[in-house]
Every structure is written in structure tokens, then in C-alpha cells.
């Protein structure tokens, strides 16, 4: 057997081994992944969140979301889980809720985002995806848009907690 034939045999064996090992790791990672029930924002209805906040309504218009009653404020807050690349839905929400009476905040991967434009969203998503090359990027492709009354003072940690709970129940 010549050197090139040996190298070919080695490359072939390495690739077959990679395919077999890859099948095994994929199967194992699938077993390790917790199963999720499909769209279950409905499951949030009546749920008591941190600081006595309660989901009192599940919304389907203008898009899927929840209405939240909380102690600090007379008026409810509205939380909408959105895909990171969505444009029209975010725009429709803006036109439905944007007013001097409402504050708008986006929550992405546990952080409050203010004045977070489309390009910022895509850029943050690319960074999040690139930063986790070897593994999954939990919820990197989704964020939660929150609207609440402008005269309300809400603890940012609460907003992040509520958003993560809503995100966990959305598709």
C-alpha cells in the first residue's frame, strides 16, 4: 500500500467514525433535551409571577402575548414574545401601543434593551449565536417586548423575570 492509499484509508475511516459518533451525540443530545409542549401561553393564565404580578389575559391580537396586572401600577403591562428577525409584527405593536401613556422596553437574554433597533437586534443575535458555536443558544432568536404605563416605576429585575417566564411558555 502506498502512502497516498494509506492516507485515503485513514481519511475514510476517520469520516465514517465521525458520522457514527455524530449520530450518537445527536441522539444523546435529543434525549437530554427537555420536551416542550406546543404553544402554551394559555398555560400562563392566572399564573402568579414575582412580586404579586398576575397574568389576567392571554392576547392573540395584534399578536400572541399576555396582559399582566401588578402591584406597582393601576394599569396592566403587556408582554409579547417576538422572533428576533420579525419586522412587521414589531411595527404593528408599535402602532397599537406607542403613545406618551406607554413605555416600551425590550428584554433579550436577560437584559433590558432600550431603543433597540432592527439592526441592533440582528447584530446581538449574530453575536449570541457566534458566541456559542459548540452548543445551543437558548432563546437567542427571541425577545420579549413589554409595554406598561409611563407613570409606573417597575423594577427592571422584575421585568426580566416576567419576560423570561413568558418566553419559556411561548413557541
Amino acid at each position, binding site marked *: *500500500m502506498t*502512502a*497516498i*492509499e494509506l*492516507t*485515503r*484509508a*485513514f*481519511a*475514510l475511516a*476517520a*469520516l*465514517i467514525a*465521525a*458520522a457514527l*459518533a*455524530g*449520530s450518537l*451525540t*445527536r441522539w444523546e*443530545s*435529543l434525549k437530554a433535551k427537555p420536551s*416542550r409542549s*406546543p404553544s402554551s401561553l394559555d398555560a400562563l393564565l392566572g399564573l402568579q409571577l414575582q412580586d404579586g404580578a398576575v397574568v389576567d389575559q392571554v392576547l392573540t391580537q395584534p399578536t400572541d402575548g399576555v396582559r399582566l396586572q401588578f402591584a406597582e401600577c393601576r394599569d396592566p403591562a403587556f408582554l409579547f414574545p417576538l*422572533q*428576533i*428577525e*420579525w*419586522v*412587521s*409584527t414589531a*411595527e*404593528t405593536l408599535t*402602532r397599537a401601543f406607542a403613545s406618551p401613556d406607554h413605555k416600551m422596553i425590550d428584554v433579550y437574554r436577560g437584559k433590558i434593551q432600550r431603543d433597540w433597533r*432592527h*439592526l441592533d437586534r*440582528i447584530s446581538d*443575535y*449574530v453575536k449570541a*449565536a457566534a458566541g456559542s*458555536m*459548540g*452548543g*445551543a443558544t437558548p432563546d437567542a432568536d427571541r425577545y420579549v417586548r413589554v409595554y406598561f404605563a409611563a407613570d409606573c416605576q417597575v423594577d427592571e429585575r422584575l421585568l426580566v423575570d416576567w419576560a423570561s417566564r413568558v418566553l419559556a411558555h411561548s413557541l
Partner: protein
Amino acid sequence: MGVNVRDRHVMYAFAGCIALATLWRRIVLEGLASGQIVRSPFCAGEALALFALFVVITRMKNDALFTRIELFIIAALGAAFVLPSMKVACVAMTATALMFLTRSDARLTSIGQLLLALMSFQYFARLIFALIAPYALWLETIAVTTLLSGLGDFSRDGFDIVGPNGHTIYIELPCSAFHNISVAVIIWLGLIKIERLHFVRSDWWALAAMIGVTILVNTIRISLMAQSLTMHQYWHNGAGVTIVTVVMLVSVLAISLLSRAGLAPKLA
């Protein structure tokens, strides 16, 4: 008597790794998550490109095209498929594609093109579309409203298309025609590479026609969805989705066949 291992056998194994990574993501992860094991247009496009990859590899016959260094590189890149991450697999596919695109052999160049197409289909096409989405969706909304203007008192308000009965829809990325263009492109490339290794001028006309038909069919579909809530449900979630998918795939295949008919040698 020993079996002679050829370069094409190595490439069959590499293509097998790619098929594993790609189909695992589409069929098992996304298919199970969405409740649909086979998501027709995506599976059709990628399956065709994968088939084309195997066809091109078959054309390598018993030729020795790789140096020892290249074989070591291919073997090392194969290790990327051990991880369940599609992103890592795409890095290996890109590196292999770039290596092959620098070669003068048409078979290796074609394999490089198919690998780049498969990888772009997974990530880059989606990323590019996400970047241009505000403009693309705005243009598409205008196109749909223009088409509908002859059918009634439809109007546009930002991204909303408002019907005379008050029924309002807006186009989001998954429903956009631009989203389906990447499917048309990968099918176009796959069909060419199954038939031959080189591009000819009519291929580019065929590509333009495929993109045009994809945009037209999707614009008509959205126009139908704008008519009423019942129509929206039928064309967005109901049997209308299958009809549109079949029409798009048949149109793309028909354009491909017609462009090949023009290439066939004419009898005097």
C-alpha cells in the same frame, strides 16, 4: 484481495456526514418541534442539493484528485460533524468549499458550490434576509396592495394591508416571497449540477424566471389571504399552503425543464 479506497469514497463519507447534520436538523429537530416531519419546500431543496452532491462525487470515478495534505484536512474537518451543532458543521462545510473552489477541476468546484449553497441556505440566506427585511417587506406590502387595488377598496397603513371589510393582515418574514427565493436558488443549483458541471447562459435566465415565479405566486397567495379571515386561515394554515408549495415546486421544475429543452441539440 484488498479494496482500493478512492478519493470519491472519502467524499461519499464526507457527504454522508453533511447529510446526517442537515437532515437531522430539518427532520428531527425542526420537524418534531413544528409537528411536521417533512416541511416540503425546505426538505425538497436541501434533499435535492444533497442528491446533487452525491451525483457529482460519483463523477469523480477512480480519479486521484486529492493530495495527502488535502485528505488530512478533509479528515480533520470531518471531526466537526461529531458535535451535534449545525453551526460547527457549517464551518467545516465552508472550509471544505473554499478549498475546492480554488481547484480547477470542475467536479471539485461544483462540490464547493453545492457545499456553499447548503451552508448559505442554513445561515447566510436567513441572515441577509433578516438584514434587508424592513425594505423587502415594505416593497412586498406595496406589491400586494397594488395587486389588490384592482379588486376592491384595499389600502396600506405601514406594514398593514387593510381590506374594505376591515380585515387586516401584515406580511412577516416566514410568509415573505424572499424567504422562498433561497429554496428556488438551491433547487436551481441542484438541478444544474445533477445534469452537468458548468453553467450556461440560459441557466441565469432560468434562475431569474424561478425567482420571478416565486415572488408572483407568493404575492397572489398573500392577496388571497387579505380577502377575509376565512381566506386567511385557508391560505396561511390550511390546505392552501400545500397548494402554494406544490405550485411553486412544479413551476420551478417546469422552468428548469424548459430551459434545458432550449439547450437540447436541434435536428435539421
